[in-house]
């Protein structure tokens, strides 16, 4: 019998848990031998599970350039995520992957000025790409990051953003929160409006991830600035079980989001029926 079976996971150990926001934690995962579970590309996903609780798909938030471990930023919003949020360091989980197509960081993105636009936990999948671009800094032009959340307490990776990203040369971070808040002297307003206000030039490749409503209005804003669909990317979210394009639930048109996505360019999405 064929001994390779994609549906059988391997063991991972949670070695660090960072509390990012009131409902988002970032979990560091290695194998029992202390190795990174497997290699991946920016934008790819992995299945995490706790036997008896369930299995769910998460984007890998750490960059492939991190050779020591894998990180997942996870918002508490269902059975598996609630269980993970009560887990402690040293807890074993199961992990399998990587799944899906990555962002084209080594071809289409190479040499480009990059614009990342994220809302809330939508930063999680982009962090892998951002840190990849920062690592191979010479391969990319300017990097702009527009990131917004409900409040300053809901900003993911805040320490990394302030202490690392903001200090990089050629990296411009634009943070915003939805409403005025004590102790916040930064920008206030929704992400799509902020993107329009910032008025980016169209020499950039844009990557969006966030709530559907943010994506919709940010897209409108980018189009009005003169951006073409062929220079805007996103990563989709659908319910998944197998991760290998067989169980059927992430099927949209002739594509399976787990296998043919989750990364899509907006002109590619035009080919799909509007059901994601």
């Amino acid at each position, binding site marked *: 019998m064929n001994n390779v079976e994609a549906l059988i996971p391997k063991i991972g150990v949670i070695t660090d848990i960072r509390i990012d926001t009131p409902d988002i934690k970032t979990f560091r995962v290695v194998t029992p031998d202390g190795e990174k579970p497997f290699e991946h590309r920016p934008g790819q996903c992995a299945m995490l599970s706790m036997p008896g609780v369930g299995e769910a798909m998460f984007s890998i938030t750490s960059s492939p350039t991190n050779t020591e471990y894998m990180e997942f930023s996870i918002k508490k919003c269902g059975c598996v995520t609630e269980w993970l949020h009560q887990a402690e360091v040293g807890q074993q989980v199961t992990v399998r992957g990587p799944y899906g197509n990555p962002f084209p960081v080594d071809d289409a993105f190479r040499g480009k000025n990059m614009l990342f636009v994220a809302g809330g936990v939508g930063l999680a999948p982009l962090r892998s790409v951002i840190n990849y671009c920062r690592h191979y800094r010479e391969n990319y032009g300017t990097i702009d990051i527009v990131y917004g959340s409900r409040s300053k307490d809901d900003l993911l990776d805040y320490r990394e953003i302030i202490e690392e990203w903001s200090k990089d040369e050629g990296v411009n971070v634009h943070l915003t929160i939805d409403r005025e808040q004590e102790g916040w002297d930064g920008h206030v307003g929704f992400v799509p409006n902020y993107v329009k206000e910032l008025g980016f030039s169209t020499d950039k490749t844009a990557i969006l991830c966030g709530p559907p409503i943010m994506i919709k209005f940010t897209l409108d804003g980018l189009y009005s600035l003169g951006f073409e669909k062929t220079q805007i990317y996103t990563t989709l979210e659908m319910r998944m079980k197998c991760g290998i394009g067989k169980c059927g639930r992430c099927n949209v*048109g002739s594509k399976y989001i787990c296998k043919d996505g989750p990364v899509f360019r907006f002109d590619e999405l035009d080919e799909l029926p509007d059901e994601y």
Partner: protein
Amino acid sequence: MRKCSLDSLNAVFAKIAEAAELYLPVNCTDGSAAFSKWEEGKEWSNNLNTVKSPKEFFFPQTEDLVAFKTSGKNIEIIDTRKEREDFVVFGVRACDVKAFEVLDNVFLLKEPYDSYYTNRREHGVIISVACNRPADTCFCKTFGIDPADPQGDISVWKTADSLYWQANTERGAALLEKIADLTEDCDTAAVDAEKEKITKIMSKLPLANLTTEGWGAGKTQELFDSPIWAEMSEACLGCGTCTFVCPTCQCYDIKDFNTGKGVVRFRCWDSCMYSDFTKMSAGQPRLSQKERFRQRFMHKLVYYPENNNGLFSCVGCGRCVAKCPISMNIAKVMKKIGGKENE
């Protein structure tokens, strides 16, 4: 080609069952037929149109994938897979044989391979039987399937007094070799006559003129937004019966079961007709039964062909037509949305 008399059928089945588990359609008390393991005294049903398709021999309704033991913070993974013993499925209709091609494209031929399905395919011999008792709900011809000329490892034709056997694969030939003492060489005259008879019966079926016109790869833009989906799905109960009796439906769920001694992760058939099929914490991409209903037919008649060189993932077996509690079915959808009634 080999033949045996119907009188010797019991001996033939006994001989096959010596070497491998043998399954065939038998009559149920309610008049329907179901695949059952053969043993002495069990009679093969004349009714090949089983309520459930033989897909479950290769893709069972539920099956264990892997098991876990947990203690404290630790997890142990137990690979529970084992080699399937050889088995034979006798009495598979041409449409149901074709359905294995549809499933093979998903589980066997596209990486990563499904080791569970592959294991069963490697150990199963399929013996088809030419279908001379089609139901009013049958429309295999629509998909280019000839019930008089079924495929599989061995093809069998039944006449008033004899069974005719033809091996199509090495595995089939090896099995025929095992029953060589009980069969004799023959020409194809009786089979040719039987084929002609079946062709005549088929041409008289109510759905004989159903075509795939208007459907197939590349039709998404044209069909997806049709207003008729809302109308046709209105009465759909979302019961999922159509997907469970379907020989080609391949969607599955993966779930954990705590046995008290450990956790078994299993998969089971699932249905795109169910609301929680796509429900996420972040939202629901298919909000109403209209979207779910549309998904089932678009997948079979447009999306699947796009990914599989034009092959439709409906074989016209008619099970969903017969079993839908509201008498909605793929034939009506094909006529109304893609076909002539739409013009």
